[in-house]
């Protein structure tokens, strides 16, 4: 039986392969002290530390060593692990910008073991709730914590619970919205897979607070491991009397069931999600009535996002005041982001609310790849917007992001550099929403397609200045008259790029040029004579025979024949093809 765990990672590289040597040497050092059965070395994929060489974390002592060399291992074992001494020279001096509440157990415990979770104070929050608090007391704790919904809307969680609690009904339901669908987002999935019990505990507490006896997990079928682990965790919780009749010896009964979603983005919308669970076509319905009054099968229903629910046990365990200390005035706690794009260390991060975008991009993300200049940051996924680099000192919270024309959303964050075209990015996100529109309401169904068509025209050199007015007109109609959040927010990427990067649109439309050299149709390929070594490689790959010439006279690209596929640019080893 292991007693202590040590995590290691080479933070200069992606992947796990790089730690193999260190791992073997570490094991050797442990064997010498005969500790191999007492201390377990775990190679982890992400530690929240980047570009600090080999990192060793000993969680029990809260020790973090970085830039560890092979020769340091002997000392780490003999001094730190045996004697508990701290080696000052190795200690990581950086301030920890990340704060893990939601991901507190992810990568730390065995997600298939309820005992591991219990060891980390699991189900203690529930115990406190069932033994010490009445439902209104629980809601009050959540109110004091200031927790807001992490699914995107940012609606105060206690208010949702309070509405449902107050509505009289013979049955009530709580649903965990695990229909995470933003492109590139995997925050909820990580929690479901890494710490399923924390979500389940959150559900049971929520169920108790609103007076529900039944809860549903709505998980997209594309998350098979999450489904498996949640089911396993439900079974375990039942075996331990944490689900079912008379939970923890009280008269509270509650059980959970999984419902699979087919992966339609719109089913993340509450009313569409309810329709989907009921076996109907997943389309939104008008509100009111709100789900907290008339939801699943006509009964009061609370729908909370995975991340929101994972916060609940922590709040009740540590107390709402402790939680409320973290974050800004109106946005409490932490937020999990999936940091991607042109950033060195992309991955899942959890930060306290109020951290600046700069800290996220440069301190946690390690800056931009190839140290390029930051152009903008896209937040909030397909419903969000871009925030230009000049606002990089903005503290991240619900209200600040919304003031800048973006949203927190479920936590997508994409770093954009000068080689990214904002029109292209707007087009990408809009296309996503157009594909995912359920087709029920006219503004979203037709408006989205019209806007996409205009953006395609602009990026392919057929744009007109009046298109900008059309984009704005349709955007307003979609924002104001679409039935659900999908349609109401789908124009956001377009509106925010128009606001901050209007010149870039103009350049596409008036000069038929893409400043980022991203929009293929607007590029002109040319052979740079001085650089050309006349190898003829470009001629061979050109699919349309647009490149002519010979070794003596050099080569030329016929712009009429050129289809701008970029093959010649890619194949040229002498950077003798220009595109602009």
């Amino acid at each position, binding site marked *: 039986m292991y007693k202590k765990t040590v995590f290691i990672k080479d933070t200069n590289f992606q992947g796990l392969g790089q730690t193999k040597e260190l791992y073997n040497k570490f094991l050797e050092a442990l064997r010498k002290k005969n500790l191999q059965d007492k201390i377990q070395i775990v190679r982890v994929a992400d530690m929240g530390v980047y570009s600090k060489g080999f990192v060793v974390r000993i969680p029990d002592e809260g020790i973090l060593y970085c830039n560890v060399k092979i020769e340091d291992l002997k000392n780490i074992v003999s001094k730190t692990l045996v004697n508990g001494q701290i080696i000052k020279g190795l200690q990581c001096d950086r301030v920890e910008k990340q704060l893990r509440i939601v991901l507190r157990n992810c990568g730390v415990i065995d997600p298939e073991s309820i005992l591991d979770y219990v060891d980390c104070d699991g189900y203690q929050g529930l115990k406190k709730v069932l033994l010490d608090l009445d439902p209104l007391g629980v809601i009050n704790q959540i109110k004091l914590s200031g927790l807001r919904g992490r699914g995107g809307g940012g609606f105060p969680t206690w208010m949702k619970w309070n509405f449902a609690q107050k509505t009289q009904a013979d049955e009530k339901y709580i649903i965990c919205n695990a229909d995470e669908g933003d492109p590139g987002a995997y925050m909820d999935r990580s929690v479901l897979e890494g710490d399923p019990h924390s979500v389940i505990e959150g559900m049971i507490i929520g169920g108790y607070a609103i007076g529900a006896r039944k809860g549903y997990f709505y998980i997209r079928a594309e998350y098979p491991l999450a489904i498996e682990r949640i089911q396993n965790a439900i079974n375990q919780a039942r075996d331990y009397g944490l689900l079912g009749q008379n939970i923890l010896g009280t008269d509270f009964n509650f059980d959970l069931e999984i419902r699979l979603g087919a992966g339609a983005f719109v089913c993340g919308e509450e009313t569409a999600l309810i329709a989907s669970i009921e076996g109907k076509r997943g*389309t939104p319905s008008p509100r009111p009535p709100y789900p907290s009054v008339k939801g699943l099968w006509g009964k009061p229903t609370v729908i909370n996002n995975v991340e929101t629910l994972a916060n609940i046990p922590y709040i009740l365990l540590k107390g709402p005041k402790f939680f409320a200390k973290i974050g800004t005035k109106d946005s409490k706690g932490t937020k999990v982001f999936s940091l991607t794009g042109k950033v060195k260390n992309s991955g899942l991060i959890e930060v306290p609310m109020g951290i600046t975008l700069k800290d996220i991009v440069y301190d946690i993300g390690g800056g931009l790849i190839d140290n390029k200049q930051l152009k903008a940051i896209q937040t909030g996924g397909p419903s969000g917007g871009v925030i230009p680099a000049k606002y990089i000192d903005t503290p991240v919270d619900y209200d600040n992001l919304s003031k800048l024309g973006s949203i927190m959303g479920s936590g997508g964050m994409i770093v954009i550099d000068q080689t990214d075209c904002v029109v292209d990015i707007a087009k990408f996100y809009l296309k996503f929403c157009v594909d995912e*529109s359920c087709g029920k309401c006219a503004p979203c169904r*037709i408006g989205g*397609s019209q806007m996409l068509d205009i953006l395609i025209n602009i990026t392919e050199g057929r744009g007109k200045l009046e298109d900008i007015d*059309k984009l704005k007109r349709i955007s307003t109609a979609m924002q104001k*008259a679409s039935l659900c959040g999908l349609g109401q927010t789908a124009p956001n990427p377009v509106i925010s790029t128009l606001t901050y990067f209007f010149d870039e649109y103009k350049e596409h439309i008036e000069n038929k040029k893409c400043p980022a050299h991203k929009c293929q149709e607007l590029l002109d390929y040319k052979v740079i004579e001085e650089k050309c070594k006349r190898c003829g490689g470009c001629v061979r790959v050109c699919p349309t025979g647009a490149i002519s010439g010979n070794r003596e006279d050099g080569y030329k690209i016929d712009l009429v024949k050129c289809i701008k596929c970029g093959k010649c640019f890619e194949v040229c080893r002498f950077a003798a093809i220009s595109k602009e």
Partner: protein
Amino acid sequence: MISATINGQIVNVAKGTTILNAAKKININIPTLCKHLDLDATAACGICIVKIKGTKKMLRSCCTPLEKGMEIITHDNQLQEIRRTIIELILSNHPNDCLECGRNNNCELQKLAADFGIREQPFKRFLRQIPKDDSTKTIVIDPQKCILCGRCVQVCQEMQNVWALSFLERGLETRISPAGDINLADSPCVRCGQCSAHCPTGAITEYDQTKRVWQALYDTDKYCVVQIAPAVRVAIGEAFGFPDGTNLTGKLYAALRKLGFKAIFDTSFGADVTIMEEASEFTQRFVNKKGKLPMITTCCPSWVDFMEKFYPDMIEHFSSVKSPHEIVGVLSKTYYAKINKLDPKKVTMISIMPCTSKKYEITRSQEMFASGVQDIDVVLTTRELARMIKQAGIDFANLSEEEPDHILGDYTGAGVIFGATGGVMEAALRTAHYFITGKNVNKLEFENVRGLKGIKETEIEIKGIKIRIAVAHGLGNVELVLKKIQAALKAGKEPPYHFVEVMACLGGCVGGGGQPYGVTDQLRLARARGLYTEDDKKELYLSHDNPYVKKLYKDFLKEPLGKVSHELLHTHYKPRPLYRK
């Protein structure tokens, strides 16, 4: 009552009233498209949005209840601009071939575009290339013209409980279709046509057969005769500017003669005959205990189709009597042809019906060819007839009233109330009472089966025997009645009813799927009133008192349920699959 302001005007309405209806109360019309007066809001189009002080969002007035103290703005520059944009977007996804459309001049989208003065199309045309579905030969779905308001789906699923129509695909590809993308004819569709009656555009229309009728009328070799159903006379006026529910029987006869029909019959006469047979059948079952109880009426072909598909175990409870127009049809090619020495093959029978399903009924089984040829050649809906009258240049409003051809044209009050829900029951009870007691009842004896309540249950007493009856209309209301019967039969108990009338469409035939577009409860009531007024005025109100019915039995049929009757006036039913593929 709650109080709020709309455009500064104070409005007081009952709790739960939508903003749309509250505004209407103070004479403010908020434009709508997808909302149908009688149906729950589907909230699809977004045109009815309004501003509410204190919220940034705009809300749909069709489905948002007015709340106390709300300050609502229904019209301002921004709202109008958004509405206009939505209309332009919808038009960019619509064929806009109004001149060739079945709803030209009668289309809710066209009207909205006209009201907003749309003069150009700023957006790109996105047309969906989806073929029409006319497989049922009763109703035609043209998905290109569909604006996805969702009324038809709501009507098919909730009002009619048939579930033939649903939404398929998503985004711009969304369309209405039977599940599994099969043809309507292969789906559970019972052809009631309520989808077409509620459709705001030309996306669902009747299967037009006017061409065939014109050809027959101009064919000198053919002897064209025609019959009109009770409900047609009180609805056709809507196409000619008459007040709702005006009974135009005499003008219709005149118009049909002008169109070139050689003889004008009335389905209400067939209804009187139906009653003779059906009341006899009921007496047989009820008094003589021959056959199953409750007995269920079968005048409605959509109902028959529904039963054969969804409740085949109830077939034995069906009355075997054909529907009134089939009776007039077969009699026109036997009895009438014989009297007038006509070759039945040359007689062409056209039925003018409020119904799309009747187009299907005329070939639904072998018994519909009882005369030796197809008893009815073509069925036209009220809508098709109105178009023919206009095409023929007939000044309908100023026609003098005429009489039908007497032999199959005269009817009693009992025959004409067939067109409204409860009418068959009321007519049958009047005659059954006579059959059981030998005495005639007062006209208003069984009045409590009238009205738009979904299920009407009552108990009447004839000669000290209690008869329990139920009247259901709108197929969605039928299920409760049937489940009650099934449960009692299964438990071996006395059935809850002895006699049940069912009509597939809400309000009965007056609300039929082939009636002029834009049906609402208000219209259903007005049309029904037109029929009951005629019953009030008629001296004869008992089917068995109709002298031409008496003559028919004396000269030709001999007796109800007799041998000739059974050959010509009765039919069989069989279980049919819900899905044919």
